[in-house]
């Protein structure tokens, strides 16, 4: 005890994983992590080992997501599902303030910020990158979002190295994974074989060290070959990405191809259903709603997730700026891969593949980028940009 150091690497036996969960609780965290619900792996409260998707994996492709049994008892043997961690920092619905009428005026009471300290268990490398991106959006500008900032300050991130790549994964192309490089308090690598089922546990921060120090008897330090084994797992994952995207000069490629004929082809398939924006770990658009009481003496101001695919999103004087499905798909993709660079200095895409998997018609942005790249600047239609 007390010798756990940042940068230290330890071995956690699978049998002691429940103790690890207890250590997180003992440090004051509510654990949220992957669990099976409605035939998908989602993120929710984890109270015991069996809440995790033990022995499950997923099979993903464009418009396809299936859970399957594994032949082993792996705890993290799958890739990302329809949920992302953003929902715990930027909730789908959130009350911003309440107000009531008082003597011919009104008094506003901002919603208290804070809430429980959460341990995110099972954060993938691409998801760590996504958290960096939403940090920039919500607290990197001149005005920080009070709710996001308060919740963000109370998070412990327990990352998991991906032991396999999903069918729609392309984190290697986006430079976000699969290996966790930084930003995690603790990093787990699940080692299924050779040898007993165990985890390499790397300590990234003092907060992480505090959790590991709770474990008694103390964890043994990892041997060199454990580290090599863990590195090999990540390398194998990197070599089996389901998708790839050539990101070279992509900001300018998209900026100069706003009237490429490919947009019409993809727009003919796009249902404007908003699924891709709901599952995206970085999409941050929201709307605000006024909810008055029945006697109109009090109101609640709510924020909820919105999407650039909604017709009302760009409503102005009773009409919409982006009326066509084409313009709405184009806005989403050019923002995500192009103008995000102008706004935040990075891509808005982490290569997690959720938008491909959860698109009901299997639209694949890697395919769309490739199509534009194959014949850039071929046309100008009406308006004539270039």
């Amino acid at each position, binding site marked *: 005890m007390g010798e756990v150091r940042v940068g230290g690497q330890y071995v956690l036996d699978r049998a002691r994983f429940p103790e690890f969960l207890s250590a997180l609780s003992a440090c004051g965290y509510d654990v949220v992590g992957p669990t099976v619900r409605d035939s998908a792996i989602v993120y929710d409260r984890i109270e015991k080992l069996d809440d995790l998707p033990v022995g499950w994996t997923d099979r993903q492709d464009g418009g396809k997501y299936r859970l399957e049994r594994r032949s082993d008892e792996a705890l993290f043997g799958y890739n990302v599902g329809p949920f992302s961690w953003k929902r715990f920092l930027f909730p789908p619905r959130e009350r*911003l*303030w309440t*107000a009531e*009428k008082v003597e*011919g*005026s*009104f*008094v*506003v009471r*901002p919603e208290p910020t804070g809430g429980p300290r959460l341990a995110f268990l099972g954060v993938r490398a691409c998801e760590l990158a996504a958290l960096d991106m939403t940090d920039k*959006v*919500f607290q990197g*500008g*001149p*005005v920080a*979002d*009070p709710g996001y900032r308060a919740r963000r300050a109370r998070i412990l991130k327990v990352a998991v190295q991906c032991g396999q790549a999903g069918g729609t994964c392309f984190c290697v192309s986006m430079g976000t994974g699969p290996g966790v490089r930084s930003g995690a308090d603790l990093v787990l690598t699940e080692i299924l074989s050779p040898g007993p089922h165990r985890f390499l546990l790397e300590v990234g921060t003092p907060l992480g060290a505090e959790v590991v120090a709770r474990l008694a008897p103390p964890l043994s330090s990892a041997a060199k070959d454990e580290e090599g084994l863990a590195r090999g797992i990540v390398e194998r994952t990197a070599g089996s990405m389901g998708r790839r995207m050539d990101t070279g000069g992509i900001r300018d490629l998209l*900026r100069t191809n*706003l*009237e490429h004929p490919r947009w019409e082809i993809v727009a003919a398939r796009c249902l404007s259903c908003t699924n891709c924006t709901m599952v995206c770990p970085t999409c*941050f*658009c*929201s*709307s*605000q*709603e*006024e909810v*008055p009481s029945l006697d*109109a003496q009090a*109101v609640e*101001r709510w924020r909820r997730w*919105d999407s*650039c695919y909604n017709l009302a*999103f*760009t*409503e*102005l*004087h*009773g009409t919409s*700026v*982006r*009326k*066509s499905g*084409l*313009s709405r798909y184009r*806005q989403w993709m050019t*923002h995500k891969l192009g*103008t995000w660079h*102008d*706004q935040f200095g990075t891509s808005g895409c982490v290569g997690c593949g959720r938008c491909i998997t959860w698109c009901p018609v299997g639209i694949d942005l890697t395919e769309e980028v490739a199509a534009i790249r194959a014949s850039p600047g071929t046309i100008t239609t*009406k*308006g*004539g*940009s*270039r």
Partner: protein
Amino acid sequence: MLADQPRAPAHAETMGHPFAPIPYTVRSVVLETPDTTTLVVEPHGDQRIPSSRPGQFVMLYAFGVGEVPIGVAGGNAEGQLIHTVRSAGKVTQALTHLTPGDTVGIRGPYGHGWPVANARGGDVVVVAGGLGMPPLREVVYELFRHRDSFGRVEIVYGARTPKDLVYYNEIQSWRRRDDVRLQVTVDAAGREWYGDVGVVTTRIPDCRFDPPKTTAFVCGPEIMMKLTAQALVERGVKPESTWISMERNMKCAIGLCGHCQFGPSFVCRDGPVFCYRDLAPLLAVREV
């Protein structure tokens, strides 16, 4: 949007919650046109928003209904603010039906305004279309206050019909000045109208200014701004000296909600006033 454009002060943390409106009382109401109302409001209590610069906007809040972005048309040292609102949706309908003594909420001011100081030493042309006049009203008074700092001043104001002209009496008083040239035109009019008929772009050839030394401030519907800017550039006004004010759906006004994006820009934070040179390529594309 640009390095040479004055930057708005960061919305101070001391303002409290960034989404909480501050109560203001409606002092007076002027019915400008059948659907457009000018509200003069003043702080209800001790709290007030920081003073704004010409071209900035606020989020105007109707209790129980919602918020809309509205340009600041004027203000004074006592914290009074002037806003001109056209009834187009449920929030603006509520705002245009307020009477003196009613309460509204205000948060802001937001965005970058008109770089009036950059125009010093040269000629200035102000072109307003319809409700593009309110966000330019303070520009006009800024020019009047520092009249010697500028060369010729041309004001062109167009509306659909004579009854759509706002600030009618006030604008007549501008006409009486001998150091400003004012052209008012309407798209269509009956026999009662003795003035010009035609869209604002038809008045640009008549403007008297030295194009390379002219700064243009243009506000109105997007198509009007685009065509006006093109007409000005055709006359030799530099695209980098031509400024327009963009309008988009806005929910947060501080770059967090995503609604107002126009290409790489958040109109709320990087605009609403932009340099035409920077926007021209995107204005050529439909539904950006």
